[in-house]
């Protein structure tokens, strides 16, 4: 086992897989935290920040190998879970800026240089993330549910009514989607008001999610830890208010969705191509 204090300086055939950046590392936590290869993760310190890294063999994690391995679902799942396990453990202990999957540097020096170069941005992110967690809310279309019985009587006689009914049948499918989209927007807006920040991920393909119906909302919300219970309650309330959507809450996640360079503003939504 490598020392958790003195980072090895070997370069060459190992790289440094970055898990995340924190203000201060708990060495006890790190020394018991297996990284990408099973060896404990290590801290790399610079600019008042700590990067948590795994040493990885470039034969498996080098650029060429990554191109090949990312095509392999089993490999992708294994590394995604290994990376997440570390980031999740760090997030439980305090604020962490999670690194994107497969961020590999040649050596500790390069990691430290990155910290120094991005110090201000990382420090601001850590401030923003402290005491907060990410929650996911997915909304699946419920085909049979109708939000409101609005239409019945209208101008014209029986013929016109028939045409309206017929048209309603033909467009029922579109209506389901439209209603679900409207409900998703409403749910997202309501949740965003109770969050520090919010964004919408692209809806998941059903072949991936395994869900019986389409996804209308794939939202992520950065929520104060003290407000998490209230947020979960709000999800319940919104689910009851919008029977045309089946809501699913996940979390807390490490704040993966809120470390982009320009975080989405609360309640300002980028619509997915749904």
């Amino acid at each position, binding site marked *: 086992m490598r020392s958790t204090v003195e980072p090895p300086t070997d370069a060459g055939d190992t790289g440094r897989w970055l898990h995340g950046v924190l203000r201060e590392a708990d060495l006890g936590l790190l020394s018991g935290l297996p990284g990408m290869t099973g060896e404990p993760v290590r801290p790399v310190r610079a600019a008042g920040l700590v990067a948590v890294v795994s040493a990885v063999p470039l034969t498996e994690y080098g650029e060429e190998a990554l191109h090949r391995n990312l095509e392999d679902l089993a490999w992708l799942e294994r590394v995604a879970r290994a990376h997440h396990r570390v980031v999740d453990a760090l997030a439980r202990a305090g604020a962490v800026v999670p*690194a994107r999957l497969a961020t*590999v540097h040649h050596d500790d020096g390069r990691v430290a240089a990155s910290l120094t170069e*991005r110090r201000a941005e990382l420090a601001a992110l850590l401030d923003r993330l402290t005491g907060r967690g990410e929650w996911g809310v997915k909304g699946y279309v419920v085909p049979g549910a109708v939000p409101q019985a609005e239409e019945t009587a209208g101008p014209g006689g029986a013929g016109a009514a028939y045409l309206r009914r017929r048209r309603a049948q033909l467009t029922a499918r579109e209506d389901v989607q439209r209603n679900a989209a409207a409900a998703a927007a409403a749910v997202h807006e309501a949740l965003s008001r109770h969050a520090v920040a919010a964004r919408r991920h692209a809806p998941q*393909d059903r072949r991936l999610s395994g869900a019986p119906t389409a996804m209308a909302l794939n939202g992520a919300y950065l929520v104060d830890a003290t407000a998490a219970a209230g947020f979960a309650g709000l999800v319940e309330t919104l689910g009851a208010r919008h029977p045309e959507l089946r809501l699913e809450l*996940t979390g807390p996640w490490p704040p993966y969705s809120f470390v982009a*360079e320009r975080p*989405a503003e609360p309640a300002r939504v980028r619509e997915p191509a749904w």
Partner: protein
Amino acid sequence: MVTTSLAPNSADDPLAYRPVALVDLLDRVLATGVVVSGDITLSIADVDLVRISLRALIASVGALAPPEPPAAGGAAAVPGPDAPSAGALPGGDW
């Protein structure tokens, strides 16, 4: 309505790690996250590369699930690289 809490980490027992849905995880670790300009893997930020991976994923999972009808979301809708909001992509630097 159903609200299911698939807590990726169970607050009541920090030692009990509950596996999260892979698709939820990939939404986050592939499409988001700070992209440090790693010396080797700048190309991981390349959207095409990520898409290729997800195609492989779909192919693997697709063998087990019926094909998606051309309903909402579209059969070709690939989850994951949330192009409009993947703020970490531009420049490939972080």
